[in-house]
């Protein structure tokens, strides 16, 4: 892993730590009496705060996971560095697209 990727990996990890704590609290709070789509969407639809929170979360996780996948592929599989790079970028883009789509699905009115 080069220095730039290392720094991005650690920066996104540090940024996600507080976000993850909030996310875990949300999971416990939202599921304590059974989760319904109506309850979930009533809280999230039209909420700029949740859109911002999960937008940042998705951005950080897409970068963090892509770099992690690249490390695993290059260390555990006999792949050329270039192929591991391409697979990691594709995975990061996939996560970002699906993640932002999911955020849009629950916050857009």
């Amino acid at each position, binding site marked *: 892993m080069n220095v730039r990727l290392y720094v991005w990996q650690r920066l996104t990890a540090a940024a996600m730590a507080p976000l993850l704590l909030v996310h875990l609290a949300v999971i416990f709070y939202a599921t304590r009496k059974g989760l319904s789509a109506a309850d979930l969407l009533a809280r999230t639809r039209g909420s700029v705060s949740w859109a911002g929170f999960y937008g940042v979360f998705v951005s950080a*996780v897409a970068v963090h996971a892509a770099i992690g*996948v690249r490390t695993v592929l290059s260390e555990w599989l006999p792949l050329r560095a270039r192929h591991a790079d391409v697979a990691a970028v594709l995975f990061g883009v996939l996560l970002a697209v699906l993640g932002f789509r999911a955020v849009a699905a629950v916050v857009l009115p």
Partner: protein
Amino acid sequence: MTMLAHRTSPLWIAALVHRLSGIALAIFLPLHFLALGLAISGEARLEAFLRWSDQPLVKASEALLVGLLTVHMLGGLRLLALENLAWHRRQVWFALLAIAAAMLVAFAFLASVV
């Protein structure tokens, strides 16, 4: 045998747990996003999925994922501390604490949803 001796170290096992939990989360995340994205097609589609997820096996899997998320987060914090702060002789205890805390959170989640 000597070359593999380090693999019995709790810190090596902690690193392996961190990596395996990361792989599991990387596999889970696209599915998680796809599930939430069902709301694009309307509340009813998401509700149908959530009712499907009420099955005990799915709840157990969710608890496992909550545990993996927690252990990956705590393992990551341990790694950040290891890399940026002075070496602490209780690193092994921090690793064990991360695993114990993750198991506790996973069981607490399971207890709260069943």
